[in-house]
């Protein structure tokens, strides 16, 4: 990655009802966002399997963002609650094993109407990942 301006590759799992809509509205209303978030639309943040997050990291992703509806607003009532527990478990695993992925993994609640918040989350997280630099296992052969 030549050093001109490192734009991190962030895989964003956005829940179809809230986060994806917010992202879409942010795009439509031309809010300034770094082009670093590669969006994967999922029906609910509860649909995000820990293996998706691990696979995104081990395939060279610099960061993973899971964004869903605010607790209590989930279209399926409890999807985001499960997502929260899974994220907590994953963070605990990363922390116990001293993996930097823990800092590169973020769970955010973004309601459908909060386009500016989504832009803010995208910008803030991209900045955070930029500080951490490219993923150390980007070209790890023995994974």
């Amino acid at each position, binding site marked *: 990655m030549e050093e001109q301006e490192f734009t991190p590759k962030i895989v964003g799992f956005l829940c179809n009802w809230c986060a994806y809509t917010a992202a879409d509205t942010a795009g439509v209303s031309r809010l300034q966002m770094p082009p670093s978030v590669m969006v994967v639309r999922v029906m609910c943040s509860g649909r995000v399997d820990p293996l998706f997050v691990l696979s995104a990291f081990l395939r060279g992703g610099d960061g993973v963002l899971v964004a869903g509806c605010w607790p209590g607003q989930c279209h399926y009532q409890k999807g985001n609650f499960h997502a929260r527990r899974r994220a907590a478990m994953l963070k605990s695993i990363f922390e116990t*094993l001293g993996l930097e992925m823990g800092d590169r993994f973020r769970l955010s609640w973004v309601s459908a109407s909060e386009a500016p918040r989504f832009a803010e989350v995208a910008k803030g997280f991209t900045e955070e990942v930029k500080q951490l630099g490219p993923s150390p296992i980007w070209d790890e052969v023995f994974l």
Partner: protein
Amino acid sequence: MPEGLKINKGAQEAVRELLCSLLESGRVNGVLALGRTRGANGGVAYSLFTDSDAFVADGAALPFLPFMPANAGGLLSRLTLKGSLAGPVAAVVKPCELRAFIELVKRSQGSLDNLLLISSTCGGVYPLDVGANGGLEERLPRYWEAVKQGEVDSDVRPVCRACVHFVPENADITVALVGEEDLDTQCTLFLDTEKGAAFVKGLEGLQGTSLSGELETEPIQRSHSQRAAYREELFAGVEVGMQELIRTFGRCIGCHACKTVCPICYCSLCYFDSQDCEYLPEIYESELERKGGLRLPPNTVFFQLGRLAHVSVSCVGCGMCTDVCPADIPVSTIFSKVGTSVQALFDYQPGKDVTEEIPLMTFEEEELAQVAT
């Protein structure tokens, strides 16, 4: 104060006698217990006994051998998977096996109906390769000496020396072993549940004086703190960081044996063995372009992290995964350490209570506020 029974016979012998009379009286149809297969160096295996001769003099059944050829929790799941037992069956299992079975029952992989669960305070077991080279026999005297003092023999598996749940909680009958000086001549059974008491009450051929005593004796508390200290030391020894993880699993040959023997890993077709992980050549080639090289078979670290994500919440630290690893990787130390921290996060102890939901299957409205930012 739990109601107990004191039998003036050695623990192994007393329990064999109990099982023999249970079978003969027809109170149980079968007994799952450790025993010697007929082999020359007498391989040790779990067996489903239905003939009481196995429990007399030189019978094959030896319930308290310090050896774990398979996790009996997984075996009880195999026994009761396709329907609960019609008639009662007894099983002599170690505390971690009992906890593994309860975790499996929560996943509807077995049922507790008609099962008489007999367990004991556990002094740990020897690694598989000790048994493989016939080294079990000569270690028995040393093992029982350590158990009497409430110590753990140094040859015992690290994961057992670090086990803080060596006192069973859900057994119908608990046999006191750890810290019992006179376990060669005396045997104390605690009847933890009515079911346990019902099975034993009025069982002819079993002379014992009833007593009420405390399972948590002083040697057990001492052993508990010793093991907890060893556990800190063992967990501190785990090399953390991605590069260290890659070095630790460098030797992994991708045989997935740790998954096969893990009682909590019950999927009939694991994600990592399924078509989802049989990639098209183009995917290998694009990875090759990006990284200049990739390991085959793939997903070595991904398999370990993925299995951790699935199992860590219920890992009971039974140590089978390290035992079967052909590459001598300390898998169970890593899984126990991560399991302990994940379980602490949800304040959950696997195998403690069959009615308690598995943490990832339930939630609280207000919790873990620090996770989402």
